[in-house]
């Protein structure tokens, strides 16, 4: 009894190996150097009277607190568009997926939206890491992603539209502002990931060319809440100002330590690029009173389009819910996509892309225009000051929308960066 099964197993294993070999041999696809191997545009489901779009945001994990607000404002824009007749006569049907604050999950869900749901476009992602993870997925499938968050620049994917600010629309104007205020000795504090590290590299290049000095540069792991050392280092550096690229909950701990180290907005202002109205609420106004932020939109931004947006958002999600820059950029991205589709008279990504240049929209932040060459948008830079009511009041703006320059080609000091 004992020998027979052994023979069986061996014969069976040999069979399996042979089967595997046959399968492997028959399954040789395109080589990397073969031309035209990637001619596999994703299908878009336009049957019926709806067109599907993907909403790809973290609904769980550390990023959920921020990304849920983006999902909400995307949903608001879709509802508004559907109420006024949809796009090309079709109602938009959003398919929501959870990126779970985990980059490989973002890639998996992006693939699911494109291949299984056959969406016409996808809106979402927040962190640069999640964008980098899904970028090859959208490029390989020739499908469109609308990315609504300010980021570190140095990227220009043919299948991504960037509706948040690139560096020259946020960080460079913030540095210009600090320089004009005579704040020339800076201390850099950031979370340990791509955006802060790249942003700080750009800040150093700017400082070198503009007679500013960087007194220190410190990173804390994402989600870290231990800031007593950093706050003390910042204090003893006697810098004029702090440039803060911390993300998420770390800001709560940082500003508490900052205050207990005896530092204030008057003695050493902090410019933050990731603190919007939503975060002000969770950090606590008493810690942020008078501190500076750099964005392209605030809830207090003047204009009829913004009044309408803020009112609609509060009516849908609650009177205590603030609106913020990434939310606005997400809201705008849906309308821009709609305008592009209508100009192209097609949902086909290639035609939509071709129609993108020069599309404008009266956004809550003011008029925005797509720059077809870089697939970024013209945006007005705004420096704001956190008020005691938790809202951010604008103290300076760039006067007119700034042309996007993701690779900082128009700035001689940035020549060594990319």
């Amino acid at each position: 009894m004992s020998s027979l099964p052994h023979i069986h197993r061996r014969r069976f294993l040999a069979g399996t190996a042979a089967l595997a070999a046959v399968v492997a041999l028959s399954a040789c696809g395109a080589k990397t150097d073969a031309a035209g191997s990637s001619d596999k545009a994703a299908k878009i489901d336009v049957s019926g009277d709806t067109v599907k779009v993907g909403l790809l945001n973290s609904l769980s994990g550390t990023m959920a607190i921020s990304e849920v607000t983006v999902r909400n404002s995307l949903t608001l824009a879709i509802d508004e568009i559907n109420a006024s007749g949809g796009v090309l006569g079709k109602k938009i049907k959003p398919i929501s997926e959870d990126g779970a604050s985990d980059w490989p999950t973002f890639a998996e869900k992006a693939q699911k939206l494109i291949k299984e749901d056959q969406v016409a476009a996808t809106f979402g992602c927040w962190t640069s890491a999640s964008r980098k993870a899904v970028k090859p997925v959208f490029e390989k499938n020739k499908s469109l992603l609308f990315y609504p968050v300010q980021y570190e620049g140095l990227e220009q994917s043919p299948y991504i539209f960037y509706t948040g600010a690139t560096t020259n629309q946020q960080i460079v104007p913030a540095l210009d502002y600090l320089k004009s205020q005579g704040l020339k000795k800076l201390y850099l504090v950031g979370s340990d990931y791509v955006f802060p590290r790249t942003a700080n590299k750009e800040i150093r290049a700017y400082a070198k060319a503009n007679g500013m000095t960087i007194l220190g540069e410190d990173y804390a792991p994402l989600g870290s809440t231990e800031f007593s050392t950093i706050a003390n280092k910042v204090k003893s550096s006697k810098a004029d100002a702090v440039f803060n690229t911390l993300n998420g909950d770390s800001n709560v701990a940082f500003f508490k330590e900052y205050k207990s180290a005896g530092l204030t907005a008057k003695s050493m202002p902090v410019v933050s690029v990731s603190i919007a109205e939503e975060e002000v609420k969770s950090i606590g106004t008493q810690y942020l009173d008078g501190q500076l932020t750099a964005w392209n939109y605030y809830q207090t931004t003047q204009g009829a389009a913004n009044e309408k947006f803020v009112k609609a958002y509060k009516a849908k999600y609650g009177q205590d819910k603030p609106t913020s820059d990434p939310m606005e950029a997400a809201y705008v991205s849906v309308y821009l996509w709609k305008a592009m589709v209508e100009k192209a008279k097609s949902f086909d990504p290639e035609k939509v892309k071709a129609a993108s240049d020069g599309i404008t929209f009266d956004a809550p932040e003011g008029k925005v225009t797509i720059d077809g060459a870089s697939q970024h948008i013209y945006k007005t830079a705004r420096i704001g000051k956190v008020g005691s009511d938790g809202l951010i009041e604008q103290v300076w703006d760039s006067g007119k929308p700034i042309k996007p320059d993701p690779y900082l080609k128009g700035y001689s000091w940035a020549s060594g960066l990319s």
Partner: protein
Amino acid sequence: MNLLKGPSARAAAGFAGSAVVLFALAPLVLSDFRLGLLAKYLCIAMVAVGVCLAWGRGGLLTLGQGVFFGLGGYAMAMHLKIADAGPGNLPDFMQLYGTATELPWWWQPFANPLFALAATVLLPMAVAAVLGSFIFRRRVKGAYFAILSQALAAAFAIWLIGQQATTGGTNGLTDIQGFFGYALDDPVNQRMVYFVIAAALLLLIALARQLIHSRYGELLVAVRDSEERVRFLGYDPANVKLVAYVVAAGMAGLAGALFVPAVGIISPALIGIVPSIEFVIGAAVGGRASLVGAVLGAVAVAWAKTALSEEFPAAWTYFQGLLFIVALAFLPGGLASLAGIVRRRRATAEEKKAAVIPVGEAA
């Protein structure tokens, strides 16, 4: 009839069944996208095979398998990134974030495909061997071993994030185009990658089964259950544990290496504390002491994660948590223990019958 009895024959039948499912049925019924997901689950199952050996059989709660998975994954991804960049060029992220004009010295050997392939398995095994010999010789056990593994996973992830210029930082290594000359965006090649992964998984299961049913396997269980007794019998428990730990590390390394072409990314998000725990949860739910249980558990948990999150994007984490609690509270031995329970019930029932009949006859 005899052929179908006995553990070897049952295993052979199981193998035949799973080979048919993996090589014939799955590619037939699943779309390209779903097959790609299955490839990913099978990679996680490969880690679970090692976990079954080290934890289920050896009692080593390896909460740091992410480290070995990551070593294998990064070894493979580094080679593929160099190959994508082409000779003389730097990988794309180094051009963006780095300052170096040539490859760092520790990247250079990975340009060689054979070195990289060997490194995916041997590097994790070497690291495990060095670590393990320190840990086990000093008789670090139980919770202390688990905490140490966790700390290691956290430290490795933090180190990777800090070295943005040479490791890609939080982003990890992404946008991998080719796999040894084959374009990964071609569905035919993706299918090939799936077959490679399925074959590798079956191979690892066969290897683990041989180990478990060998004299060594019995020794390993003996060490798990009573280390001191094994020591008094003249064996060195440290060596016994070391072998299981190193083999499990090698399996995790291979899994990480094959994960890269299947999913197209390796990042610190797959290495730290949470993913390291996730690698163990699958085995725990399925049944850590049983190979079949651990493998099916890993696949089932990964599949449930996808299915639940697609169905309930906002609330799936609660369902997943509930699933773990229910599974572990009511079946501490995992789903595989169900089979054992059923078998024991039937056995006791038969025993009762056997005990009753003679009495009846006598009466």
